[in-house]
Every structure is written in C-alpha cells, then in structure tokens.
C-alpha cells in the first residue's frame, strides 16, 4: 500500500494534511485501519476543544479493539466529520480519503516536525518485527 507523499504522519498512526484554508485535517492511516478491522464507532473531540500535540482526543473502535486517536498538532478543533457517526467504515474503505476532525493549528513548525512518508514507512516496518 503506498503511503501518500503529501501527508505527514505520527508514530501513533495518524496522518495530517494542511488544507488551503490553513486548517489541518487529521485521520488514521491505512495501516492502522487494517490492524483494527471493520470500524463500528468513532468518537470525535468536541468542536472548540483546544488540543496539545500528542494529546488523546478521540477513539476509533472496531469489533476487535478500541484505539485512541492522538492529535498530531496543537490547536483548536474546528470541524468533525459527521459522516462517521453513521458510516465509520468509510475509514476502512479509504483511510487517506476520510478525515476525522480538523484543527486550526497554532504552530506551523509542529506540522513540519512530523514524519514524512518514508519516515512513517520505516516505523511500520520496524513494528512488523
């Protein structure tokens, strides 16, 4: 599975994308959804909540297991993907096409400090052993 070169990544398997309006979209990676299996429930952070980079801010839950979502950057939550309430499996169908929430970031350096695609690939490969 190719890892999109235009996204940034965390070692906890979130991806982050800088949008044209300056907000950052956040989702979980293909690798993460594959480990979890069919998702049945996504718990989003509240709109307006102020998050610190690395803070626990939501949950993705599959039949098998629940997994916390950690915010890749600091900032205020400005939007959540309402589709996931009804259809959490959209993440399984296209992890990189399905954003979970959006943040207005406070420090652009944080995004740059995240892993790039090759860096994330190394993480996955290391975890496979």
């Amino acid at each position, binding site marked *: 599975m190719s890892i999109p070169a235009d996204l940034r990544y965390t070692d906890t398997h979130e991806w982050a994308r800088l949008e044209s309006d300056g907000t950052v979209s956040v989702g979980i990676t293909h690798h993460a959804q594959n480990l979890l*299996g*069919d998702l*049945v*429930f996504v*718990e989003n952070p509240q709109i307006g909540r102020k998050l610190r980079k690395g803070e626990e801010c939501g*949950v993705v*839950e599959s*039949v*098998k297991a*629940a997994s916390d979502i950690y915010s890749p950057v600091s900032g205020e939550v400005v939007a959540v993907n309402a589709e996931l309430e009804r259809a959490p*499996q959209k993440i*399984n169908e296209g992890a990189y096409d399905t954003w979970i929430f959006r943040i207005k970031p406070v420090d652009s350096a944080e995004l740059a400090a995240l892993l790039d695609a090759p860096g994330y690939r190394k993480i996955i490969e290391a975890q496979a052993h």
Partner: protein
Amino acid sequence: MTPMKRTPLFEIHRAMGARLVDFGGWEMPLHYGSQLEEHHLVRRDAGMFDVSHMLVLDIEGDQAKPLLLALLANNVERLKEPGKALYSCMLNEDGGVIDDLIVYFLGEARYRMVVNAGTADKDLAWLEAQRAQIAPRARVAPRRDLAMIAIQGPNAREKTWRAKPDLKPCSEELGVFIGAACGDWFVARTGYTGEDGFEIMLPAGLAEAFWGAARAAGVAPVGLGARDTLRLEAGMNLYGQDMDESVTPLESGLASTVDLVSPRDFVGKQALLKRAPRAQMLGLVLLERGVLRAHQKVITASGQGTITSGSFSPTLNTSIALARVPVAVGERETVKVEVRERLLKARTVKYPFVRRGRNLVAAD
C-alpha cells in the same frame, strides 16, 4: 515457541489472503477482508466456516452409553433416533464446566462427540481417565482424519446440495439437530450461528475440493471474527469466556441443558444439587454508543456483575453482551457498564438476541 496447528484448509485461507490469528493454538482465519460483511452474508444468504480445529471423537461399545450417561450433564437417553444430537456440558466433581459439546447418537452403541479445539487435550485426558475407571470396554477414538465445514444461512442447505448433489438424498429430510451419514461423510443440521444450515464432517483429503465447490455454488468463506458476532447474537456460549471450570452451567445460562430430573447420577450432579447458583447469565444491550467487551464491570441495583462476552452486533447495529450478574437482577432493568473509564447505560434482556435473521430484542 510451539508452531501453531493448521487444518486441511489452511493453504486455501492463506491463498485467499485471510487475516490469520492464533486460536487455541491453531492458525485460523479471522476474516477474509471484512468481518462485518461476512456476518451479514450468513444472516442473509450462506457462509461457510472451517471448523476442522474442533475435535471429533467416536465413542463405541456396549459401555459407550453408560460412559456418556455418567459424564454428561444432559441425558443421552433422550437420543433414541440414529443421528439425533444433544448439546451438553461435561462437568467436574464440583459442578464446574470442563467443556461444552454436541453428541450424536449414530446407532448401534456408537456415539460421536464434537468438542472445542482449545480443550481437546484436556477432554481426551478426562475421558480416558473416566473410561479406564468406569467403562473399560468403551472405545474412544479421536477422528483427526476428518475435516469439518459449517455452512450456515437461509440458503445454506440449498447451496450445499448445489455444491455436492449426492448429499441431498440423505440430508434433505433432516430435522433440526439431527445428522445422517452420507457415505463417508456426516451431515448434521446443527450450527453455531442461529441460522439454518449444516455442519459437515468429511474425509480431510476431500476438504479443499468441497470448499471450492461450495464457493462456486455461492457460499462465502467466513472467518472466526464473524463466527463470534454471529454466535453472540444467537445467545450461544463460548467456552473459556462465558464459562469455565470455576462456574456451573446453572450460573452460565445453561440450566435447560442440565438434566436434574431423572434419577441418573452424573459427575457434578451432587455439587449442583447441594449449592444454589451464585449468579445468573443475562443479555445486555448497550443504550449508548460504544462497544461492550469481556471483563467490563456491570453495576446493578443488586450488586456488581461482569461481562463475559461482548461485541458489536452487526444485525442489531448496537453493542450487545452476555453478563454474569447477581441472581436478584431482573430482565429489562437499566444497569451501568464501566466502559473505558465511563459509565454507560445498558438494558438487561433475555437472550438470544437474533434467530433466523430476526431481531428478537424488542426496541424498548
């Protein structure tokens, strides 16, 4: 580390790209792509499971029946018709559950038992010890030469016959919970999903070909992940999770499978008669969003209980569970469950939750 055991169908699972996991020491398919889709296919159409990891045991001889009368909580005396099956627990002296199993009467002093994969060695050792002591002329033969495939769903029987037409004459008339020998094969109208269908025991060497024929006939391969959500909806216990040697069948929702009426004595009977059940099993339906899971605490007005099995129910589109709770808890009571540090509301219900595709839990 001991390598995992593999069934005769392992190469097929691998070739299909199944997600393989360790199940009781066996390398088994969790799913072939989507556990939820596989679950729905069984409720709506037909799906098949490789259950060859379970152990088939043939018990024969004039002392076969006395052995089973002495060891099983349910009464094999009720099996008069050849092929008739019985679900039973096998208990220890304290009334604790050693395993749950299905036993078929094959006729002429022959019985066939199917026991769980994870407990097979334990069951065999127990049977052998008891046989030596109380029924030395009985013979207990593990049948590792057989594979087992369960085909389940409203179209299961039809598609089984399409896959192998010569199974039809000998299995067409089978009522529920009865099996028949079809040449070397054994076809039983039993299952672990709450749907109609067959569990088929066949020579191991023929398993791959039959699996392929069933696929061609439109039966979808289904993994153990869906097997678990299906059996939970159907209100069927999973040994090792819903019960084990530390609890009695009366504390596990299985009172109807224990024969305390006939004068027959069996291992564990005295313990059951002496001790009132210390808990009961009830179903739970989660009233909020989330997923109930095993070991979560259940808080009731009558004291604390524990979830033994919990999951998401694809058919009901909500989370359900089996829970061991105090005897005083009633049905349709609102309780709280500790889910990941929050207290969520759930309702106690009688189970099964789903049978033959129908939602049995009335919405409120």
